[in-house]
């Protein structure tokens, strides 16, 4: 497996997590604060697994933190879409829709599953509870906990059977490159497939969440329709970079176009197709994002946290 390709997958997830987390305590509804944190945690979790693996394949002793905090923007391999600013809520939802419509088929392929196993999207219209609020997403009960309980040997948390196969690669303290998880041989495909199989389930939820919001906002009020259309139009050019590799344009469109139609939004014309992220040539935004993300880690070289 090409290290740059793995870094591309991991950096997409990491930069997306960083942007989504910017919404904390700022969402339109309290339920949405929980949902966006949930999605950010999923992306961050996938990023950690992918970067850890990329570091092992690279074989230069870099762990997830060395890769996240000690690379400059020119060494990041994420697509441009994820580094663009959050903008308003419509922009964030359009970014998430476009990203998850790429990540779901991508992870499905990497997991060695066939396309039609893409988790059924859009199970009916969005639902509201009796109070007229949007029903909240399932809360993530394990994300930080798992780490916390692992960090504290005296209080072993409950085991997470689903994650068991990944547990060794999840912690930064684990031995790098050891055992049968090394880059050579059939272990490689299995390792990536296991990561992708976990991430794929999460992507299905991200796609569902962003598609439902796209539909609500597209088919909501005049203002929300305008904002959603503006967001789709502004971001559309950046989606070409997503579909220049493992996921074909047709595959991606087959997920996105029905959502736009149901949302009464126009599908933008194809034209300008900015790129360069996969080879480290980014927008002006990434350096600022990394400047913030890396500041503390870089200020204390070699420190443990």
């Amino acid at each position, binding site marked *: 497996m090409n290290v740059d390709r793995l870094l591309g997958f991991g950096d997409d997830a990491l930069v997306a997590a*960083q942007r989504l987390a910017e919404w904390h*305590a700022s969402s339109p509804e309290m339920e949405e604060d929980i949902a966006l944190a949930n999605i950010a*945690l999923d992306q961050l979790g996938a990023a950690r697994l992918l970067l850890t693996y990329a570091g092992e394949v690279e074989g230069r002793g870099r762990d997830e933190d060395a890769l996240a905090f000690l690379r400059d923007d020119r060494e990041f391999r994420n697509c441009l879409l994820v580094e663009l600013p959050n903008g308003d809520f419509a922009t964030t939802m359009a970014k998430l829709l476009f990203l998850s419509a790429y990540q779901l088929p991508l992870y499905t392929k990497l997991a060695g599953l066939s396309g039609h196993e893409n988790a059924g999207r859009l199970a009916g219209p969005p639902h*509201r509870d009796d109070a007229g609020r949007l029903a909240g997403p399932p*809360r993530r009960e394990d994300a930080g906990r798992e780490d916390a309980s692992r960090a504290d040997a005296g209080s072993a948390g409950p085991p997470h059977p689903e994650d068991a196969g990944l547990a060794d690669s999840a912690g930064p303290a684990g031995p790098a490159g050891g055992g049968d998880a090394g880059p050579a041989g059939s272990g490689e495909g299995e390792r990536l497939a296991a990561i992708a199989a976990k991430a794929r389930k999460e992507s299905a939820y991200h796609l569902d969440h962003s598609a439902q919001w796209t539909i609500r906002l597209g088919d*909501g009020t005049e203002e929300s329709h305008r904002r959603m259309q503006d967001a789709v139009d502004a971001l559309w050019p950046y989606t070409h970079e997503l579909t220049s590799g493992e996921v074909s344009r047709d595959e991606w469109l087959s997920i996105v176009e029905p959502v736009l139609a149901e949302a009464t939004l126009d599908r933008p014309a194809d034209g300008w197709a900015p790129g360069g992220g996969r080879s480290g040539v980014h927008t002006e935004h990434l350096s600022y994002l990394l400047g913030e993300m890396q500041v503390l880690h870089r200020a204390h070289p070699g420190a443990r946290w």
Partner: protein
Amino acid sequence: MLAKPSESCNTVEVYGNDIPGLLGEVEAAETALREAAARDTEAAHGEAAYFDAVIKADQKIEPRDWMPDSYRKTLIRQIAQHAHSEIIGMQPEGNWISRAPTLKRKAILLAKVQDEAGHGLYLYAAAETLGVSRDELVELLLAGRQKYSSIFNYPTLTWADVGAIGWLVDGAAIVNQVPLCRCSYGPYARAMIRICKEESFHQRQGFEILHTLSHGTEAQRAMAQGAVDRWWYPSLAMFGPPDADSTHSAQSMAWKIKRFSNDELRQRFVDMCVQQAGVLGLTLPDPDLRWNEERQAYDYTQPDYDELMRVIKGDGPCNRQRMAHRRRSHDEGAWVREAAAAYAKKRAADA
């Protein structure tokens, strides 16, 4: 119950002495909740007599039961303030999500801030059982007519502040909230049981951040000590004014909303922290802190209650910033909430 000072540097043992002890009380409250339901109050006739009998028998008042207006108002004020605190409390810690020093720390912090949003939602739901809507309560917060915990009006200046908030602020919250698991109002008691279980994770995570820093480089150690120096007295002030000046306490005790006085809880917190600070290798910023053999408790310096009153009244370092942020988020989300309502209405019309 006082934990004995420990010579051990084993964090597990420290927790064995206090936080799990407190969690044992949460479990006991849960059992008591079930037992209370079986207790006999049949003898009482008339609404007010029934209410008094339920309180006396340590049973739970439920939303359908008659209750004095002032009991209802007290609970709404207290539960709403608690809910608002969870929501505003997301800001100071959230301040470090983007700059957390490792990906693992970032994930833990993000999950913690998410938990706080969840706690806010449980608590608003508990308040709603008293006949007030969440939207009304949020309006009261935004209008400055209901308060949130004054602790969140202090800034998080370094990464170590995230640890100090977990250790001290969440620790104080647990000491405050464990007795609320036995509160006479059923929905509040049940929400508190759930929240206390989650808060104990947060407290442990905070302790662990500080422990790592205090055993790290000189700069990290200084960062940890600085954060403890800044958060110690505001954390002591979280228990409210001294008993002599506490306006709501007596009635709340009689109603069994509150079970211990502000000063009793503050003492319990101090005694817990002293030995934990020893394990951390950090100093609590109080030269007069010492064990009092006679009282079997630590003597300590009281927080500056004039400062507490100033912060409560709005003149803390971050009151304006926290409220401005909350109002801005609320206002900027209005078009989204309107769109969701409009969409739901269209779909209902289609059906």
